[in-house]
Each structure stands twice: as structure tokens, then as C-alpha cells.
């Protein structure tokens, strides 16, 4: 049986909006097929490049399953141990519904846009 076209997903590091802050734009479908690539992408930035203040832009993300959410869960403590954080912005309604069902807003700050995330980071000493 020929396998169909798999999920497409990209994570791109955008131009830093402010020194010390990393903006990552997510696009496509983040599921059990694409989550391992995303995990490697995020681990490279957090563990090797020591980037700890991350803003994840969800605006072009069409889909996320628990496999993708598990990647965020797996690294949140590491970035906080480096005095950083991971903030989610521009989350589409249907994805926010899933985050809310799971109680993610207890752990992750979910904000409307980039400016709000930058203000939130600026308040952290």
C-alpha cells in the first residue's frame, strides 16, 4: 500500500524582535509525524544555543495534537531553569479550545500578539 502525503510542518526562527528574545513561527500541521522534527528544532535552540526567552507564533499553525503539545511540555522547565520562558501568541480559536481543555493556560502564557509577549517578558526580572 502506497503511503499518502504526510503532514507538512515548518518552524522558522524569525528576526529577533528584541535582543535576547527568540521569535519562532510555526506553520502547518504539528502531529505525531512532525513533532519529532519540531522537538529537534526546539532542543537545538534551548540546549545548544541557550536561547531561553521564546515566543511561539501560532498564527499559521493549522493543527496541533498532543504529540506537539508534549514537545512544549518537555522543554518548558529547561527554559525556565535558564531564567527564560515560552509564550504562545496568535493562537487560532480551534487550537486555543484544545489548549484550554487541557489546562495549558495554567502553565503557558497565551497572549494575543507579539507586543503583549514582549511586554510580558519585560516585566520579568
Amino acid at each position, binding site marked *: *500500500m502506497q*503511503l*499518502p*502525503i*504526510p*503532514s*507538512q510542518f515548518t518552524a522558522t526562527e524569525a528576526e529577533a524582535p528584541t535582543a535576547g528574545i527568540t521569535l519562532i513561527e510555526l506553520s502547518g*500541521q504539528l*502531529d*505525531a*509525524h512532525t513533532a519529532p522534527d519540531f522537538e529537534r528544532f526546539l532542543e537545538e535552540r534551548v540546549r545548544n544555543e541557550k536561547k531561553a526567552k521564546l515566543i511561539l507564533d501560532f498564527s499559521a499553525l493549522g*493543527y496541533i*495534537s*498532543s*504529540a506537539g*503539545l*508534549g514537545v512544549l*511540555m*518537555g522543554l*518548558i*522547565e529547561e527554559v525556565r531553569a535558564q531564567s527564560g520562558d515560552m509564550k504562545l501568541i496568535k493562537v487560532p*480559536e*480551534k487550537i486555543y*479550545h*484544545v489548549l484550554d*481543555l*487541557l*489546562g*495549558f493556560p*495554567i*502553565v503557558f502564557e497565551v497572549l494575543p500578539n507579539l507586543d503583549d509577549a514582549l511586554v510580558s517578558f519585560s516585566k520579568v526580572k
Partner: protein
Amino acid sequence: MKSFPTITLPADTQILAELRSFIVRTASGDGVDELTLHALELAADEIASNVIKHVASEMPCDIFCRCGIDPETRTVICEISWQSVEPFRPDVLPESEHIRQRLESRQPGGLGIFLIHALVDEIEYDYHDGRSLIRLMKKL
């Protein structure tokens, strides 16, 4: 079950996009909004991902899916089945409070099973002739 459209796919993560596309195609209709469709494709994806991770890694198998709208009960019904040596039936379903505790202790395990139950109105488990089956039902 009514003669709903079916699809059979190999249990591999590469098929998840195709499975979700099938769910969206077959569950679309009058009264089915975007959140309902998303809930069904996500629940089906979580089941298939679980099968791929925990069953197909031991014994390659296919995933069979049948999905459609029952106009009499105004319910979207989605059945997923696969070959398995034992019935799939989670013994302990995580409660909302337990999921929050897991989140607070950063333990991602159990999110998928919790999501499946939170996203649909009713779930039935069955096991016949060496096949496990999960039937998801969501009222319109």
C-alpha cells in the same frame, strides 16, 4: 452501522494527515461547525497515533476508519479499528483534575487519552475477531 465511507491505511505516522482529511470530508454537512470537525479529526488522530506508537511498533497493522453523519440521531459517528492481540480499553481514564496535576508536574503522558474523551460526547469500545474498535460519537 450505516453504509458510511471507509478508508484503510497502514499504521504509520505518515498517514495521519490523510486520516484527518478523510474525517473532515466524511463528517462535513449541515450543522457541523468547524469546532465539531476539529474535535473529531483530533480525537481520531489521537487514537491512530496511540495505535501507531503502542501497537504497530510491535506488530505492523492497518487502521480502518468508517465515518459519517447519522441523520436520524443527528450524530457524527466515527469508527476506528485495527488488528490487536488484546482489547484496547484504557483501565483508568484521566480526570480533568489529574490532567492539570500532570501539566503542573510537566508529565505529558495521558494527554491524548484525556483529549479523546473530552472532545466527543460518547465513546464505545469493542473487540471482535482479533480487532479492537473504538466508536466516537458527537451530537450535532
